[in-house]
């Protein structure tokens, strides 16, 4: 099956300002959403898509206000349903570049079903999940990604809910693209968003985002400058999985699980370190990478990027085939088909 691209490219050289709307941004000062918006606005010019062909679809929550701040077509919909609405937009007009923005509660609690099915179908959507591990707009209730045991307004004695890891959901739903980034590293965010836009099929970018009002510093254990290099690893396709302030730590598979090793200790050399391959079809290694945390660094960058014919292409191929060779050319043909008789 030959690969088709449905979103036309433009030669117009856009800048960030071309995608910035005239609406006042109303997020709290210091919210991670500001940085994500900025990264997103920097992404659009890199995709060479005509701005009229960009559609932003969001659900409900702080992050879902984003369509108002982007000067494209936008749809700020209802809680949890952004993926379903975006699916309809793309099916009705595959020439549109469709972006979905949701928070953790929006995408994985009320909208969990739509998220996994959009991923399973590999519908060509660019999905960004702003993960601040809390319901912010309703002022601080635990979400499906809140850390186990955390005290929130609705868990005064600590949550007894085991959290989702969005990456694992993506892999479980046979996702073809998953990347993770931090709100405080805008260059990386723009980079993975650009890669997501280039991917034909459902792409999911998880942004670990700080809500300074209701869940401040929830990601601090990995995002603080003092620890970030040792607590995270930025994966790059074809390169060894090395991290740490000294760039001397690496990941290897010990036959049972991933482990962190130090180059130069216990006879470990660079050759022992795993090379990242984002294109492996099997989800095994990618699932392990997405799962990392605790003693292992949290994986950032593009973790999975697999080629698989998108729902958009499969749909359009069938449409084109039937439009060209189908039995009926117009509705009159259909009305008069089969058993009919004259009175």
């Amino acid at each position, binding site marked *: 099956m030959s690969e088709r691209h449905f979103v036309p490219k433009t030669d117009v050289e856009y800048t960030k300002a071309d995608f910035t709307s005239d609406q006042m941004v109303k997020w709290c000062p210091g919210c991670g959403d500001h940085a994500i918006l900025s990264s997103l606005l920097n992404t659009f010019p890199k995709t060479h898509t005509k701005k*009229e062909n960009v559609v932003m679809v969001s659900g409900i929550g702080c992050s879902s206000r984003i369509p108002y701040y982007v000067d494209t077509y*936008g749809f700020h*919909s*209802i809680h949890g349903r952004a993926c379903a*609405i975006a699916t*309809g937009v793309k*099916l009705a007009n595959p020439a549109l570049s469709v972006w979905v923005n949701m928070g953790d509660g929006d995408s994985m609690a009320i909208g969990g079903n*739509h998220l996994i099915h959009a991923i399973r179908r590999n519908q060509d959507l660019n999905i960004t999940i702003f993960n601040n591990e809390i319901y912010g707009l309703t002022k601080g209730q635990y979400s499906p990604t809140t850390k186990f045991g955390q005290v929130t307004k609705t868990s005064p004695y600590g949550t007894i809910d085991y959290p989702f890891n969005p990456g694992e959901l993506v892999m479980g739903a046979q996702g073809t693209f998953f990347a993770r980034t931090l709100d405080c590293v805008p260059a990386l965010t723009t980079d993975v968003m650009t890669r997501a836009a280039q991917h034909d099929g459902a792409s999911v970018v998880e942004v670990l985002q700080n809500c300074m009002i209701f869940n401040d510093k929830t990601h601090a254990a990995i995002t603080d400058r003092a620890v970030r290099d040792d607590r995270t690893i930025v994966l790059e396709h074809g390169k060894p999985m090395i991290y740490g302030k000294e760039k001397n730590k690496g990941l290897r598979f010990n036959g049972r699980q991933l482990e962190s090793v130090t180059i130069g200790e216990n006879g470990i050399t660079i050759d022992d370190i795993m090379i990242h391959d984002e294109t492996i079809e099997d989800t095994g290694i990618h699932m392990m990478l997405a799962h990392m945390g605790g003693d292992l660094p949290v994986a950032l960058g593009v973790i999975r990027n697999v080629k698989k014919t998108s729902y958009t292409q499969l749909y359009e191929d069938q449409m084109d085939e039937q439009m060209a060779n189908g039995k*009926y050319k117009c509705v009159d043909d259909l009305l008069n088909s089969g058993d009919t008789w004259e009175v």
Partner: protein
Amino acid sequence: MSENQIVNKDDLVIRFAGDSGDGMQLSGTLFSDASALTGNDIATFPDYPAEIRAPHNTVAGVSGYQVHVGSHIYSSGDKCDILVAMNPASFKSQLKWAKKGATVIVDMDTFTDEAIEKAGYKENPFNDELERAYTIVRAPITSFTAKIGEAQGADKKTTEKCRNMFALGMIFFLTHKTLEKTFAYLERKFAKKPDVVKLNKAVLTEGYEYADKLELIHSKIVEVAHAEMPSGRYRNITGNVATAWGLLAASERSGRRLFLGSYPITPATDVMVELAKHKSLGARVFQAEDEIAGICSAIGASFAGALACTSTSGPGLSLKSEALGLAVMVELPLVVVDVQRGGPSTGLPTKTEQSDLAQALYGRNGEAPLIVVAASSSANCFYWAYTAAKLALEHMTPVILLTDGYLGNGSQLFRIPKVADLPAITPRLAKPNDPNYRPFRRDPETYAREWALPGMEGLRHRVGGLEKCPDGPLSTDPENHALMTKNRQEKVDRVANYIPDQEVTGNPDADLLVVGWGGTSGALTLAVEEMNNEGKKVAYTHFNYICPLPKNTGDILRKYKKIVVCELNNGQFAGYLRTKFPECPMHQYNKIMGLPFEVGELKECFNKLLSE
């Protein structure tokens, strides 16, 4: 056969009943198709259980199919003149649908002690009293079919599947029809299985000849009068298929791509099944992960410029409520087809009812008006689907089309229109680069906003569930909310300026006005017609436009001393009319049994009201 006495009748009702899987729906369809092709008017009504294959030989597993043929058919008929019962369970459960004196054909081979007991009888059901009340034909259907199968070397399973053909052959004899049309169907259907064609034809013929030899029924042969219908090209069509085709026609006429986002649900599924076949006509069908995604994908498709639709039934409409509110708020065109069934909750999935009216009118948070229309026959589902699409596209609003299980699964003759002859549809598309475009700028006449599609230059804008001001941005200003709420209501109210006046049929000078809406028009029309023929004065008005109502509705209601609102629910339309016209006292006739109205019960009610 020439010696047989043939009775001429205006109409005839036949009910085929058997175990689910006995092929009763097929027998019924073949008979109705053959009747239509030979000049009868027809209406059909499948009455099947919610289970696909309930335990063999139990009452729970009985599947029925009623066919009404004649010269001028409004409904699938009340009780039947001929009942086919393929086993004791169907005999037990369906005999109540047979007229006194009806011909009842049973497969006597199935009346074993075990099957009789399984059907819930204490003893063999046949007795003198029954024999006096009905002409009971005990036909050896299973054994005769088996003999033919054996002779042709067919396997047991294939042979058993042909039993329905034996019964059908008998019916063709009893209705003085020939077998050619059905032969032709079998040849088409099993073109690649000549053995199956041969076997079915032989069994069909055997049934016919068996009946011919049976003196018992020679006085029962009926020649049904041919239909007198307006000239034109005709076909048989079910309501669900007609709905799907109406949407296709609206898509072609409006130049908007057709999108249907739906989730399987009885009895609406066939709308999606039908449209899924027609990619060649541009139908973009999306089977969503749930009802909510069905309507949400449609709203997304509408935002992107499609004639967007979703089809569902009662509980599915409940799930779509929040998204319907969104469609009202963003003022996008959307057609929601609700094929009503018995409720609440899962209710009676395979039975008909009109009990989603209140949900269609009011089932959303906030002030959320939308257009509600209802189809009133299987065939006119085509026109009401078309009209729903036209109103949605021209008035920029969601429209709920109410049909029901009776219309959706039932079939009727359909006079085939030319798409070019259907009313024009003019979507309210914005002009690219229009410097004056504002998302909620309204047409001064209709109050509809303009539709600016992603991809159009110079019209970038944002919509959403939050209240907006006319220029587009968010607004929580109190006056603005009041204005936008009023404008959304005004837009729907003004649709009344674009729909025809309500009509009164029957005897307009009567004292009694019968009011109906939606899928009940067949039985109501016939009941009113018969009453007037009997010298009683009855007027009748039937509503298809539910919200808004036609402008002259009040004038009509105020004219009559007595009004009776008849509906298959507990009085939802009556309640709606009372809020609009509190000055008009209304009686109600309600039926909540999962079944359509019968002419007899309606006449009884009207006679009682006339005598009061």
